[in-house]
């Protein structure tokens, strides 16, 4: 579920990759073709990472400025030709310590997701079709943190624009997923790195709901860009959530056995 590729606004299934190797600079392409091509390029640049582990601190802020903190560790395994496998383990708050999620994500069919409740020693399969709800009371919805398979959206290139002196493509994407909480998302994609600097989320009534700012990108293994901070602001409630990412380690040698339901129970 929580997935570090969420920083890359666009990720693509290998399936689409083989059929849409349209170069970005080909003339007379439509806005839709150009939008998709940007997504394809972003995915291509982020593929081949094999696996990684990381941790994050999640700070929830309400309108009054009260802060509530969660700390979560994550493991992700790249799966060729399908969505990734991921596991997230809660360290704080203390009452949910050891609680963990295991997700097998897919492009076109619903993800499989299990929740481990350590007090009951219960592994519970979750009905994961509807992902529009908030993750752990934060301003991030489950779908914001899920594996962003390219087939989950259609795309449209809007314009070029400078954002904080960075040249960006502005691309709109429309969820193909019928249970999505959004009509559209507007993303500012860094032209040099092919990562999202900013995303605006529009709700089912097409009103601006949230803005995500990704900042302080760092490059790993001379290829993979990851933001150190992600700030999601909800314009309708005045609440915000800040994710601070730490301890990225790529190619740690994780395998399928590390993403089993047995391993979920001993994850902490």
């Amino acid at each position, binding site marked *: 579920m929580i997935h570090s590729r969420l920083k890359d606004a666009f990720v693509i299934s290998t399936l689409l990759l083989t059929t849409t190797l349209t170069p970005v600079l080909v003339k007379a392409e439509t806005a839709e073709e150009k939008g998709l091509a940007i997504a394809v390029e972003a995915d291509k640049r982020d593929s081949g990472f094999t696996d990684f582990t990381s941790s994050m601190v999640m700070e929830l802020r309400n309108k009054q400025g009260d802060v509530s903190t969660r700390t979560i560790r994550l493991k992700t395994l790249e799966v060729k030709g399908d969505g990734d496998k991921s596991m997230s383990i809660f360290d704080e708050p203390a*009452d949910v310590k050891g609680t963990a999620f295991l997700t097998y994500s897919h492009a076109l069919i*619903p993800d499989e997701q299990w929740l481990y409740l350590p007090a009951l020693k219960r592994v519970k*399969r979750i009905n994961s079709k509807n992902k529009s709800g908030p993750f752990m009371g934060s301003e991030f919805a489950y779908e914001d943190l899920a594996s962003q398979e390219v087939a989950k959206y259609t795309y449209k290139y809007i314009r070029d624009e400078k954002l904080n002196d960075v040249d960006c493509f502005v691309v709109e994407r429309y969820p193909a997923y019928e249970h999505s909480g959004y009509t559209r998302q507007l993303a500012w994609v860094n032209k040099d790195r092919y990562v999202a600097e900013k995303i605006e989320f529009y709700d089912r009534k097409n009103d601006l709901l949230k803005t995500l700012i990704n900042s302080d990108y760092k490059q790993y293994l001379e290829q993979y860009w990851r933001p150190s901070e992600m700030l999601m602001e909800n314009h309708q409630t005045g609440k915000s959530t800040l994710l601070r990412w730490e301890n990225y380690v790529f190619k740690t040698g994780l395998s399928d056995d590390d993403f089993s339901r*047995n391993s979920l129970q001993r994850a902490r």
Partner: protein
Amino acid sequence: MKQYLQSSSFAAVVIALTIMTAAFKTVQADQFSGYVGVQTRNFFQDPISPEQHNNYLSAVAEPEYFHAWDDATQNLEIKLFYRKDQYDDQRTHGDIRELAWTGVYDSWEVRAGISKVFWGVAETQHLVDIVNQTDLVENIDGEDKLGQPMLRASTEHDWGTLNFFILPGFRERTFPGAEGRPRTDVIIDTDRDAIYDSSSGKEHVDLAARYSHYIGEWEFGLSVFSGTGRDPTDFVPVAVSASGETVVVPVYSLINQLGFDGQAFFGDWTWKLEAASIEVRSGNKKGINSFKSVVGFEYTLVGLAETNMDLGFVVEYHYSDQRITTTVFDNDLATALRFVFNDAQSSEILAGIFTDADTQTIGSFIEASRRLGESWTLEAQVRTFHGTKEDRPLFSYRFDDFAQIDLNYHF
């Protein structure tokens, strides 16, 4: 004075745990966690027995230690439990919930020691979940379990997950003492020896296995158990208490149990089924076959009325042919609403009723919980019983409507 002693011993537990926390936190790769808390139980009506009370106070501690090594392929888990109750000497109890070593060898996982496992999918009753005995004095909902000595081997493959269990050391169910509440009209005395009606008695080594798998939106498990049944098959009167109440001891028999649990996801619907077939292999009820099942669904409205709140509808129907013992869940419908607020405090409310189709007996429950700040949780529950008939199990609880509040500090 008695109350003073209890609160000072509670304070001593808190201080000891605080020191232990500080000591353990200095050791790398070790995790020390758990909670301490206080609980109040207030009954709305006077009790049946003069020995019982209207208001109960208790304190609880559940410290936990976890250590993983060898690239996390081996770990040690220890979880201790202790509750001190103001009046009920049976509810004042301790248990080793976990004291187990786990080792991982390729696709196999081996676990040895005292531990707990959960089987099943239903929310309002756990039919196939037989490995661990119920710690009934904790709560009448049966959600709390005693630690079970076990040797477990588990392997997970593309074709499913297999678990094998060897279970030495039978655990007797806990029951409230004479002063405890809610409790049955008769006093179930666990200080006396229980009756084991098989020749191997309490020493029988039980065996169990479970196969589980999922195919897309379908998930299922098949389980077998052979050994001393966790549910008493009978109660035998042995004495009369000072206040004139009958004192009984539980009878445990050898059984074979075959269990099935499955669930399927269709849109926002989750359909669930648990069924168990039980054969008694010893004692007076030897040869009896019994069947029980629970079938139901959970439907969730995500983002109720454009808020962040989810509303779940839980409906489960319970059936038992009652050939072994009379049970509460013989022909009952459980309906409940689950409000999940999805807020920073993880607020949740589960409220519902059990209705008996034959006797119109109604049991109601409300369970609410939220986090306070970063380290505290507050839980409140109310349980009531209406229209209980004299020959039915819930009749004992006819004056036992109560509210319970739990305040816990987690570390």
